[in-house]
């Protein structure tokens, strides 16, 4: 054959007709993507090199976006249910009819009982928009999915230092020399972490991974700490014990930037025991090292004496740092005391502490960058402690997660490695202390908008959302005594509480992008029962369910009315600074999505549907004075809405001439400007403002300039958390608002103002002989929630999940490859395929999350391996703890934040007869979209 028929030596095929740049939505990472179009079809998706999040790279999910966009599981039109709930039988209807039905349910509720509408959004990236809608409607019952994701981390980070990981901040990847990562679900911030680890390693940096499972990031970690689930807090406190014992803490940093020097009332009987000594203006007091006298902590020239104590009116006050040192120097937090519980050796814990201290203090880095602090003091350089941390759901999703996350933040602060070169850095609009966040709000008057946002940061019992009898105002019991700091709401409790009528019954459940009938619920089988349960009259216990999703997910079959959403390539969105930002530590940034292809079905972006619904309901702020619809669609809202004068959903190209950054009048051409710029806007932080952000005058001024806040708000970090102490005091019987008797002990134990470790609730409640193993899930990097399994490419990589069993247990139980096992918890029993893994904590089993699918969903065949062999661990978990016999429903949640305690699960395993199907094997619902085509050869057309 001649060379001529072979491909040319230097082939230069045309890639596409056009590139349109938008934002990925294949997970929560929000990378910039270049969508190549040919003949109007999506040909290729690659990462956008200019984008602040991914800088050109793209993960497996992002690259599989083509299959997501053209998925056969896409819903085609609005639908109303015609068969029984769960049957999957629907009839397509017009949008007008859909709106009429929705307004017919929601309209009448608004005037008298707005709380009977519960509106919860799942993987929503428009929370500042959906919450505004819910505020206008006037229901107190709104939240997104944070409560079952990582609220412990977010809340602990904000309360402690005004920000946590991922959306709030990131390691200083280019300068860090030691990176320690705890229990990370492998998707959140997925590309930046991968890229960061790659860069760190290329620079010679080292990684310590703390995770019961050695996969993903832990696989590339130089040192793996295979800790026992739920004991991370103990491990961290033992490290603090070692650091304090050796004096390896950054005292200057603690003096300047934290409340370490605040005087705390230290006599147990004192009326202000545990509270800060404050002056008449309420300013916390410190002892000035210069003269030994009292001074306000933020007074110019004052340096707190951490070693001081102070007596006044016969009461002793000691510094917060002394209380901290006493707490963690105590023998109960020594490596020897905790090692066995953690599944580690004491020597290993000591060695980790030594390595952290070595890098922090012996590999100190300095940058010759002068800066000025909030007290006007000038510094000629920036000093870095190149130890950086990252953590997410692994340490969050425990009933002791809040305090564990607090402890991790304390550890960073003790090392002086927050907001310094080489350490952890905030991303604008963070740092933002709890005081700068709103307080939670419920409705004052039916028929009226809420007086403020639903979610916020309570600073004491007075901020809780409870009625005069102490009962929760919200259906999910957020901001009640059950979980006072539930700053993200508790989506996982909504259906359970609504079904039980505890605290009250609701009429309409309105959900967006939340697969509550499957992987987004604890105890999936039970939730499916609740959704279909009928009362004596034959009516559903939850009377109306409206659901919006783009795909034929498991939840669709359980709704009465379906509002079909678009794919992510067909919609407008804004990833707003008002919401969950995509900023980098060096820059503020926001982004948009726009319809790079037009929908070919009768579907509508959910946010645009909300604009229509808001108008039809006549909600204030959603109609013009003449009663006409205010926002034609979501794009109209994005460009014209102002949250505060001059501050809107998007920060870039404000003012008619596009000159405004952060502040400025709405610009009708704003979206075009974003599109021209590749779908995002970025405003760089000035050089002198890059570090020490909470205390850096240049940063504070810059942040005010671009509208992140309206006045500088410097603050110090909360080693000692006074709001927690206030909750404790209420439980001790002090103050007007006090918890019910049966919750007092729990609140006293959980709300320690300095983090303490306690055994996770399920761990404490169940018999360890009966349930000897911990059970965890992790999300594969190439899948996201339930979206992966309908994706023709991704499902080939993983369509079956097996339960990984540590080698020792595997051998003891006599398992062999290909075996199946029964897995039992106090709540249920499932049958699953198993596999051996040795790089695994010896008391832990685990599996990949959200591979298992319900038969008939997602346009898959009913014998798809996701349904016949895949499984969910959720069937073994419950939103409630095992019955204590007191007639009360105790949530299986963190008592501080209400975070779902997914990872407290304990199980037993035993060999099962070989072969599937996995159990429980739920019957199929009828597919609303049929089944996907047999064979696919994508790319033929090009």
């Amino acid at each position, binding site marked *: 054959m001649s060379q001529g028929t072979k491909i040319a030596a230097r082939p230069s*095929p045309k890639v596409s007709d056009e590139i349109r740049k938008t934002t990925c939505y294949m997970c929560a990472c929000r990378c910039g993507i270049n969508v190549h179009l040919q003949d109007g079809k999506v040909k290729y998706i690659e990462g956008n*090199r200019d984008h602040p999040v991914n800088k050109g790279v793209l993960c497996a999910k992002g690259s599989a976006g083509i299959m997501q966009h053209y998925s056969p599981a896409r819903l085609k039109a609005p639908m109303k249910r015609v068969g029984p709930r769960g049957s999957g039988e629907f009839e397509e209807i017009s949008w007008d009819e859909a709106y009429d039905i929705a307004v017919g349910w929601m309209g009448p509720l608004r005037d008298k009982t707005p709380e009977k509408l519960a509106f919860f959004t799942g993987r929503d990236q428009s929370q500042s928009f959906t919450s505004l809608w819910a505020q206008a409607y006037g229901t107190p019952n709104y939240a997104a999915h944070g409560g079952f994701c990582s609220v412990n981390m977010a809340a602990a980070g904000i309360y402690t230092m005004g920000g946590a990981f991922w959306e709030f901040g990131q390691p200083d990847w280019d300068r860090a020399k030691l990176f320690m990562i705890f229990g990370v679900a492998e998707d959140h911030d997925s590309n930046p972490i991968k890229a960061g680890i790659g860069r760190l390693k290329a620079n010679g940096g080292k990684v310590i991974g703390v995770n019961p499972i050695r996969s993903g990031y832990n696989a*590339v970690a130089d040192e793996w700490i295979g800790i026992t689930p739920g004991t991370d807090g103990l491990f961290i406190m033992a490290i603090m014990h070692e650091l304090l014992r*050796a004096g390896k803490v950054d005292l200057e940093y603690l003096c300047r930037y934290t409340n370490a020097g605040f005087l705390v009332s230290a006599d147990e009987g004192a009326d202000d025991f545990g509270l800060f000594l404050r002056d008449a203006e309420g300013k916390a007091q410190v002892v000035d090292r210069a003269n030994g006298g009292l001074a306000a902590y933020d007074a110019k020239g004052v340096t707190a004496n951490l*070693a001081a104590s102070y007596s006044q009116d016969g009461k002793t006050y000691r510094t917060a740092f002394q209380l901290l040192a006493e707490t963690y120097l105590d023998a109960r937090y020594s490596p020897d005391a905790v090692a066995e519980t953690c599944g580690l050796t004491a020597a290993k814990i000591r*060695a980790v502490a030594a390595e952290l201290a070595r890098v922090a203090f012996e590999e100190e880095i300095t940058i010759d960058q002068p800066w000025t602090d909030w007290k006007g003091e000038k510094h000629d350089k920036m000093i870095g402690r190149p130890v950086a941390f990252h953590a997410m759901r692994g340490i969050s999703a425990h009933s002791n997660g809040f305090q564990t996350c607090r402890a991790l933040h304390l550890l960073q602060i003790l090392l002086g490695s927050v907001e310094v070169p080489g350490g952890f850095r905030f991303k604008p609009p963070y740092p933002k202390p709890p005081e700068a966040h709103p307080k939670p709000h419920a409705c004052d008057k039916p028929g009226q908008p809420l007086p403020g946002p639903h979610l916020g940061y309570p600073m004491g019992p007075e901020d809780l959302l409870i009625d005069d009898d102490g009962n929760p105002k919200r259906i999910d019991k957020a901001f009640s005594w059950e979980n006072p700091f539930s700053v993200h709401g508790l989506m996982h409790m909504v259906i359970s509480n609504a079904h039980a009528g505890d605290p009250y019954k609701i009429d309409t459940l309105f959900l967006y992008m939340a697969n509550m009938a499957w992987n987004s619920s604890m105890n999936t089988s039970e939730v499916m029962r609740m959704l279909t349960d009928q009362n004596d009259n034959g009516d559903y216990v939850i009377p109306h369910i409206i659901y919006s999703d783009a795909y034929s997910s498991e939840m669709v079959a359980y709704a009465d009315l379906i509002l079909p959403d678009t794919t992510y390539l067909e919609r407008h969105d804004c990833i707003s600074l008002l919401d969950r930002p995509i900023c980098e530590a060096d820059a503020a940034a926001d982004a948009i999505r726009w319809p790079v292809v037009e929908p070919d079905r009768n579907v509508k972006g959910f946010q645009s549907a909300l604009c229509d619904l808001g108008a039809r309901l006549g909600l204030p702020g959603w109609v013009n004075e003449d009663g006409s619809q205010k926002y034609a669609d979501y794009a109209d809202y994005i460009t014209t809405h102002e949250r505060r004068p001059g501050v809107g959903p998007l920060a870039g190209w404000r003012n008619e001439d596009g000159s405004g950054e952060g502040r400025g009048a709405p610009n009708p051409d704003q979206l075009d400007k974003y599109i021209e710029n590749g779908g995002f806007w970025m405003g760089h932080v000035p050089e002198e403002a890059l570090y020490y952000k909470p205390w850096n005058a240049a940063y504070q001024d810059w942040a005010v300039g671009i509208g992140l806040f309206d006045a500088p708000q410097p603050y110090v970090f909360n080693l000692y958390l006074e709001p927690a102490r206030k909750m404790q005091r209420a439980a001790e019987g002090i103050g007007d608002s006090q918890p019910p008797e049966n919750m007092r002990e729990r609140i006293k134990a959980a709300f320690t103002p300095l983090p303490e470790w306690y055994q996770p609730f399920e761990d404490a409640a169940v018999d360890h002989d009966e349930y000897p193993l911990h059970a965890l899930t992790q999300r594969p990097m190439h899948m996201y929630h339930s979206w992966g399994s309908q994706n023709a490419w991704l499902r080939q990589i993983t369509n079956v999940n097996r339960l990984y069993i540590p080698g020792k247990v595997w051998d003891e139980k006599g398992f062999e490859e290909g075996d199946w096992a029964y897995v039992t918890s106090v709540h249920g029993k499932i049958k699953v395929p198993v596999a051996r893994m*040795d790089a695994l904590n010896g008391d832990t089993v685990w599996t990949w999350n959200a591979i298992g699918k319900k038969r008939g969903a997602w346009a898959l065949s009913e014998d*798809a391996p996701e349904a016949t062999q895949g499984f969910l661990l959720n069937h073994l978990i419950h939103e409630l703890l095992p019955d204590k016999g007191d007639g009360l429903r105790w949530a299986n949640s963190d008592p501080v934040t209400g975070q779902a305690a997914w990872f407290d699960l304990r199980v037993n395993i035993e060999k099962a007869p070989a072969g599937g199907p996995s159990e429980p094997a739920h019957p199929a619902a009828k597919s609303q979209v049929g089944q996907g085509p047999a064979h696919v050869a994508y790319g033929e057309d090009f």
Partner: protein
Amino acid sequence: MTALPEKTEKKLGLVIDLDTCVGCHACVVNCKEWNTSNYGTPLSDMDAYGAAPEGTFLNRVHSYEVTPQSGCAQTVHFPKSCLHCDDAPCVTVCPTGASYKRSEDGIVLVNETDCMGCGLCAWACPYGARELDQLAGIMKKCTLCVDRIYNENIPEEDREPACVRTCPAGARHFGDFADPDSKVSRLVAERDGMDLMPEMGTAPVNKYLPPRKKDVLVGETKQLDAKSEEPKGFLAWLDKALEAI
């Protein structure tokens, strides 16, 4: 002809860093995405939404567990695609002349207009780098993105294989191994880059960087010297330490 060139001007290939690969499959899917709509016939997916989905991929990521003599087991993610061997047995076995190794850059390609889908080249390859597309009946393999690396229709910075451009961790590197000063050559030299299955005598161009030594960073012997055992001692230390600030 399916004779191998005696020498190639360049030796283009990949270095894959097993110390950095986190096993995310980004390279797998981006490769699929690029190649299904560019070079030759699409990479089909059989039974795409059914009980036994199986399609053609040119790059796959395996996961292994390695247990050292002492110490805990390690997880290693292992991407694998065509290694563009110097002594490529897949080329010489081809009866139709479809398979060839380019003398200019060493890339091993299949000319799809000549392939009869006999599969013998896949049999000859030790690495599983070739997959016969089940719908088209044509042998598919990694082209090293020959339609990207010289493509004048894309920006110069993008003229690298799709898997390299997309890899979030930076675990994949593309370059010329014939040039001893190239990034890939230097990486191989510095990090003890290795061949897969050298006993097969294929002389692979692609190299793998082995994982760095694990679990030796911290050890169990380091510990901090105590400054203070008792809370009282701690205060004394604190006093002194504060003086020093």
